[in-house]
């Protein structure tokens, strides 16, 4: 057992941290976020150039063979931005499905385009009434013309607006909540019958509600096994939880730092408010929650990296902690900043909003507490 990063991991970390420190000052991010696209193509090209987009793919597929630990390093730094380029959607979610289950031919077509920054992708897996149940899929893929016709409604598809390619979960057999019978498809986002309704998210990303109205794909569009999409989806969502949890840890760090800084300079009743014992104890608690979250992040990440059998359970534990600590730290940061914290101008609101949304992604704290409690 050891807690040290490798030299390569440290190099990546230093790089990403510098990028965030230097490129992600508030004004620049605001401008990017307000733009039509919602992220910076320049940054994206730079991600490609620096090899970050290939970090998570195996060397055989042209990547750098990174794993859970590399993702953690990357996303913890992203969380400090918070970075709004759609790395999660393209590389972790859609890319994760490809990495796990795509055929050699599919990989050859799609992975290099991701790595080179030429393709934006999205994973369309949630549905209006499915809430956090990954097996709850009513979108149907029925045989048609040597391929399949997809019909249904996918909800809050992250990076939907920019995606040129979608990975879609659809039911090929079984009842609505049956884990068995879900198949993953590669779908060109420009296909006939796709209707995207685009909107911004609360934390500055972009997403789409996507209607599939008899969208035709050929047999080669299937990723992995027919009916066998659920475990691939599950593993990929676990990766996404790890990544967003690392991001959350980065965001918590920034919130604690900003709050601490604020209380050292903001004076009330003649003294810096950091001198008030009540705020001191509350910030001590914020610090503890951050450290505890970081510990679980390490634990879950190392468990995944080592392929431990109960890694999924540890990931649920992490998601619970991220949800609860994120809520506490976020709310306290705003409260301690007072009126200032409520203004869009102060930057703390962005971390608070991102933390809030991370809780609601991929199953909130309640959902994962139940998953944790009922698995062993």
């Amino acid at each position, binding site marked *: 057992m050891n807690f040290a990063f490798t030299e390569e991991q440290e190099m990546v970390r230093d790089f990403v941290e510098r990028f965030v420190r230097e490129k992600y000052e508030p004004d620049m991010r605001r401008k990017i976020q307000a733009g039509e696209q919602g992220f910076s193509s320049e940054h994206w090209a730079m991600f490609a150039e620096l090899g970050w987009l290939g970090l998570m793919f195996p060397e055989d597929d042209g990547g750098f063979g990174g794993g859970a630990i590399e993702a953690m390093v990357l996303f913890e730094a992203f969380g400090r931005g918070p970075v709004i380029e759609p790395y999660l959607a393209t590389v972790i979610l859609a890319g994760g499905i490809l990495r796990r289950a795509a055929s050699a031919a599919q990989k050859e077509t799609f992975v290099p385009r991701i790595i080179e920054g030429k393709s934006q992708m999205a994973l369309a897996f949630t549905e209006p009434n499915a*809430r*956090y149940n990954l097996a709850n899929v009513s979108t149907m893929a029925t045989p048609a013309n040597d391929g399949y016709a997809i019909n249904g409604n996918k909800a809050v598809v992250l990076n939907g607006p920019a995606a040129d390619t979608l990975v879609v979960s659809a039911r090929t057999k079984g009842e609505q909540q049956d884990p068995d019978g879900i198949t993953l498809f590669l779908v060109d986002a420009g296909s006939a019958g796709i209707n995207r309704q685009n909107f911004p*998210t609360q934390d500055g990303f972009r997403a789409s509600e996507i209607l599939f109205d008899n969208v035709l794909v050929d047999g080669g569009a299937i990723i992995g096994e027919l009916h066998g999409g659920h475990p691939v989806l599950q593993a990929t969502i676990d990766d996404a939880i790890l990544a967003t949890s690392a991001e959350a840890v980065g965001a918590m760090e920034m919130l604690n730092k900003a709050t601490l800084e604020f209380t050292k300079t903001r004076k*009330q009743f*003649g003294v810096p408010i950091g001198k008030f014992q009540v705020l001191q104890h509350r910030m001590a608690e914020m610090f503890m929650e951050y450290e505890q979250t970081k510990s679980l992040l390490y634990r879950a990440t190392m468990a995944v990296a080592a392929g431990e059998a109960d890694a999924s359970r540890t990931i649920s534990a992490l998601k619970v902690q991220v949800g609860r600590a994120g809520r506490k730290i976020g709310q306290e940061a705003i409260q301690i900043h007072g*009126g200032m914290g409520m203004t*869009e101008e102060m930057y703390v609101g962005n971390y608070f909003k991102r933390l809030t*949304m991370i809780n*609601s992604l991929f199953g909130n704290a309640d959902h994962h507490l139940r998953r944790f409690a009922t698995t062993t």
Partner: protein
Amino acid sequence: MDITFTAEEVEFQNEVRVFFENDYPQDILEKNRNRQTISAEDMVRSQKALHARGWIAPNWPAEFGGTGWSPSKRFIFETEMARAGAPRVVPFGLSMVGPIIYTFGNEAQKKRFLPGILESNDWWCQGFSEPGAGSDLASLSTKAERDGDHYIVSGQKTWTTLAQYADWIFCLVRTSSEEKKQQGISFILIDMKSPGITVNPIVTIDGGREVNDVNFHEVRVPVENLIGEEGVGWTYAKMLLTHERTGIAGVARSKDQLETIKAIASKTDNGFGEMMSEDDDFLRRLSLVEIELMALEFTELRTLAAVQTGKAPGPESSILKIKGTEIQQSITELFVDLAGNYANAYLPEYYVPGSNVDGVGPDWAADATSKYFNYRKTSIYGGSNEIQKNIIAKAVLGL
């Protein structure tokens, strides 16, 4: 002790119901039911309708145009008004400066300002907070210097809610910097149309533009707009922080919101084949809020009853502020929880009548998260909840 309504109270309840069903603008109720944004003009119409019935000021003494209701009647009125879905009354005139004027103002001021407040002809806003003075109000620095029959006011107020519609602002200003911090402060009323006033919106984290910076550049204010004595403004203002005010806890609204949540939960899938209204985790959360609220409702009634039997409305009312806002915030969290994945969507204009923003997900979810963000303010404004705890510790516990 009796929890049941007397025959008279039942009759009154009926009267209130009939009023909201017949004599109140139905289009406003309709808008509110559909979660549409209520405009400033709607607000004024709503208040004028209440005034026409004589019900605009349940917390004012009858002699100044208040209702003179018993606690039970005030409770019934609040409950029925929330049930009917009428928007709440803008508090700055009726709940805040009005009581200050009838308590500390002179006869001329009462005559001049109270009718405009009761009739909702004047829209008021509050000028207390300053960029450099948050909870530590006493360190404010907006100056009012005497120049003949006028004060010349310069400085900046911030966090001023709905200043964009305001005709008048009541301000704490520094009329002297000689004495101890609190003692140089005066309470004055300023016409928002005075030259030298500019209002700049502050965008809040939910994207809203409810609050503003209000800048004063050598604004001339007649001396007759001073409330009470010069230098005693702090004492008047403190009344606002500790004085019991109807509805500060927002109990009736919160009850209505919980009913809405229950109705929504019974139509919202939990993803695993049950409705959210059958989901253990959600029910547990919801129930804890409901229990707090059931308790607070009686804490408020107990406070009102004590006031009626002659006990002064005490610092105990800080409980109403703290628990009331905590409950309001918890309710917004329940909505976020219910919204699930749709909590992510940011659709700021969705509920503005005539907007052409398409919704995603269930209709009620479009502002779930924005409201959660927005409501973080409730534990900060009106004397932050930390200040309220200080008040309890000092004034109630004697620490």
